[in-house]
């Protein structure tokens, strides 16, 4: 498996501000993903972070709200822009690695509270 480090692990932010979450992997990976987990809910895929091109967003998520960077094969950032209390969630970075099949591995998550 890979070691996936996310920063920050938690933050409390004022509404209207933006927060950038970093995800660092200890090996080169082709596929990186960002998920959101709202309080008491399951995980929902926000977007696929593509190296060298724009991210691919899932229905209901837009680039203006969740801009993503992927400058190389080991690093990605997710920005949560113009935050409101509804953005309070855990944000998780994920990578896909091939072992027996294609398996997803997750960072420890960033717990965001917007006040």
């Amino acid at each position, binding site marked *: 498996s890979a070691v996936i480090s996310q920063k920050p692990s938690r933050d409390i932010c004022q509404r209207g501000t933006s927060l950038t979450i970093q995800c660092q992997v200890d090996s080169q990976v082709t596929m990186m993903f960002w998920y959101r987990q709202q309080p008491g809910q399951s995980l929902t895929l926000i977007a696929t972070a593509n190296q060298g091109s724009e991210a691919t967003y899932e229905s209901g998520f837009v680039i203006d709200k969740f801009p993503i960077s992927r400058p190389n094969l080991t690093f990605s950032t997710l920005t949560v822009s113009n935050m409101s209390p509804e953005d309070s969630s855990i944000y998780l970075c*994920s990578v896909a690695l*091939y072992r027996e099949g294609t398996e997803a591995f997750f960072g420890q998550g960033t717990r965001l509270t917007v006040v």
Partner: protein
Amino acid sequence: GIQVEQSPPDLILQEGANSTLRCNFSDSVNNLQWFHQNPWGQLINLFYIPSGTKQNGRLSATTVATERYSLLYISSSQTTDSGVYFCAVGFNTNAGKSTFGDGTTLTVKP
């Protein structure tokens, strides 16, 4: 898209009891994983099991792909087993993109 249903939504056990968690999915998939989310939010990989049976210590899992369900068995439960168990499914051609069920929240009481 694929629908993933997990049952039961909540489960309370006494330490030492056994349990079975179920995951039903609406379409044929070739990628299925079970995760445990601990109280700190960390997702821990338990099994990659698109078909067949696997065991790891007190945990085992079985997926019957033709009938579109998977089962996670926990034997001799411990308080450290508490947390949320998620089933996630997908396709290897869509590598890494997973659809998660709503999870089963397990509470093991001492």
